[in-house]
């Protein structure tokens, strides 16, 4: 051990020298365009801070790691927590059993409120019952529009995926589309399937479904290309997430197809693509709003006994359409990663 560490320290000298030389060389290699330097420093939405007593709220979602969408939900929740003097505990697991354990974990921590997504409501039923018997208010967000009342949640903030799909289908009708392919990036995801079903319901043309492997972008690209070549009558690609829509644009050109691309959900690059016209429109469910309202509502309930929708109606955060006509005003928020 001793000898090897000596050897290592002797090796360290040239390493440091090389690193220093590299740092000097890099200074001469800066990019004249793009990059961090050109990024605008926009400020996040922030208000003053409440003087109410410090409270703790848990947000438990079914996010899979690294999903841009959930990152925006979380930012909304964090903004509300900062404003309301709330300590926010965020946890997530796409596996329903694990998610219910995380809710139990929050109950054990004796939090003042829980916000939870109900992607698989049955798996969360018993643990939500436990929260209620521990007198912890529970609100729902994002998924579970048809189940939140049954499970006795206080209120719900989200978008009905089927309604969003239906609105999407109607929009396609207005744009004169004849044949669309609905690209699902995660086989078996209920929300994504409901979106495609919604499109199918109202769209007067033909709707095909295509599954792609969302964790492998080159595979997504070539699979969409293959589908467009297999059926050249497809004139609209319906993507269910912003990164997949941007990839679909490349597939369309690879396949030599004339299809147009539209999508659910937004991100920074997508707003650029909409203003450039490479993507026609996006349906936004305002994930920031879902996270923000869910946390803020728990604060209101604790401090003033309010609850939205009177315990009867959900609070709908979408579908909101983003297209060339209104993309400019949204783009700057998307650039901050909050829309």
């Amino acid at each position, binding site marked *: 051990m001793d000898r090897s560490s000596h050897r290592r320290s002797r090796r360290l000298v040239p390493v440091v020298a090389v690193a220093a030389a590299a740092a000097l060389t*890099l200074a001469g*290699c*800066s*990019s*004249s*365009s*793009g*990059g*961090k*330097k*050109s*990024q605008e420093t926009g400020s996040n939405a922030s208000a003053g801070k409440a003087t109410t007593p410090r409270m703790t709220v848990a947000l438990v979602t079914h996010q*899979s*790691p*690294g*999903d*841009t969408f959930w*990152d925006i939900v979380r930012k909304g929740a964090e903004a509300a927590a900062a404003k309301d003097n709330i300590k926010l505990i965020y946890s997530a697991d796409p596996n329903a059993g694990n998610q219910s354990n995380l809710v139990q974990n929050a109950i054990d921590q004796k939090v003042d409120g829980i916000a939870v997504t109900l992607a698989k409501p049955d798996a969360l039923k018993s643990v939500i019952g436990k929260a209620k018997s521990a007198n912890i208010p529970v609100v729902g967000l994002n998924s579970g529009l048809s189940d939140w009342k049954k499970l006795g949640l206080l209120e719900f903030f989200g978008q009905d995926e089927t309604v969003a799909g239906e609105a999407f289908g109607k929009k396609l009708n207005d744009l004169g589309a004849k044949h669309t392919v609905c690209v699902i990036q995660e*086989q078996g995801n209920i929300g994504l399937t409901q979106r495609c079903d919604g499109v199918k319901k109202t769209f007067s043309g033909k709707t095909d*479904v*295509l*599954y792609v*492997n*969302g*964790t*492998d*972008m*080159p*595979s997504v*690209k*070539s*699979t969409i*290309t*293959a*589908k467009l*070549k*297999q*059926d050249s009558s497809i004139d609209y690609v319906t993507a269910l997430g912003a*990164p997949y829509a*941007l*990839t679909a644009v*490349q597939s369309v050109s*690879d*396949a*030599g197809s004339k299809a147009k691309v539209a999508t659910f959900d937004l*991100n*920074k*690059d997508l707003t*650029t693509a909409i203003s450039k016209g490479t993507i026609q429109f996006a349906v936004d469910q305002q994930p920031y709003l879902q996270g923000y309202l869910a946390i803020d509502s728990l604060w209101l309930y604790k401090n003033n006994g309010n609850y939205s929708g009177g315990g009867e109606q959900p609070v709908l955060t979408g579908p909101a359409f983003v297209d060339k006509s209104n993309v400019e005003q949204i783009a700057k928020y998307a650039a901050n*990663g909050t829309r």
Partner: protein
Amino acid sequence: MSMTQHAEPAVETPPAPGPKESDGRTAQRSAFVRLMARPDVGVFLGAVAVYVFFLIAAPPVRDASSMANILYQSSTLGIVTVPVALLMIGGEFDLSAGVGVITSALTASMTAYQLTLNVWVGVIAALIVSLAIGFFNGWMVVKTGLPSFLVTLGTFLILQGVNLAVTKLITGNVATDDISNMDGFSSAKKVFASSFDIGGVQVKITVFWWLLFAAIATWVLLRTKYGNWIFAVGGNKESARAVGVPVAFTKISLFMLVGFGAWFVGMHQLFSFNTVQSGEGVGIELIYISGAVIGGCLLTGGYGSAIGPVFGAFMFGMVQQGIVYAGWNPDWFKAFLGVMLLGAVLINLWVQRTMTRR
């Protein structure tokens, strides 16, 4: 994985001299049988079978541009499958290769963007990081003697977390920023993500790189001393050491080659899609490994080729896209994929068995 093969006679396993003059007992075999006994013939036949099947079942496959698309998909898998196969011949696994691709792409993107540097600086930084990950894997395996399955499972999990956490820490988001308007992007795109026009068909450059890497790997494996070392360390580490093969060097460099492959595909993804999602790449490591196994590499090491995995990756691409070209009910997609792959592996196995027994 290195313990079990000592007990077996390992007849097909060539010792140091190389794969050609494999075993004396079958000197009387005909040229045909000898050809069929090569590790890559089974997968070749399997790939042909799958190809012909889809040629009949899916009319769009007959189009040359469809083939270019299938080859593209295969190449993005194949560029990593080739070094993964070499590593497997050398007797080790790498489960961190799939997320390693994303680590590399994230490193390049964030280095260039955050420091506002020419993107080539990011490309080099990513290469260093990828090789370092490979070195770490190899060094851990050699120094500790732990199974590479465990060591790289560890790096797999570490990288998965690091990808996410560091990206979030640095960019504030879970995806990197668009670097397509930065200096050096267009020249890097030419190298990693451009297309060529061949007879009116756009072929992606990754296809050429894939075939080039496979050709180099085959040459190294069959014609160089280093190639013999790979077979030797995978066959029996102790006897390899006894005859003077630098076991530690060979294994560590093989892990670093996988790092190189991951870097290359990472760069392709970056320059092809402009941004990188930090959560991607999970699960792809198994496709690389299956590509190598379908391509005739033994899970126990010491046996295999670099050409077999080319067909292995092709078979994956072919089945994955063929199902779409055939327009089959997409609900069954994964099941089709599994059945086709299992079928191909069985053909492979059958060819191996019948040909080596006679």
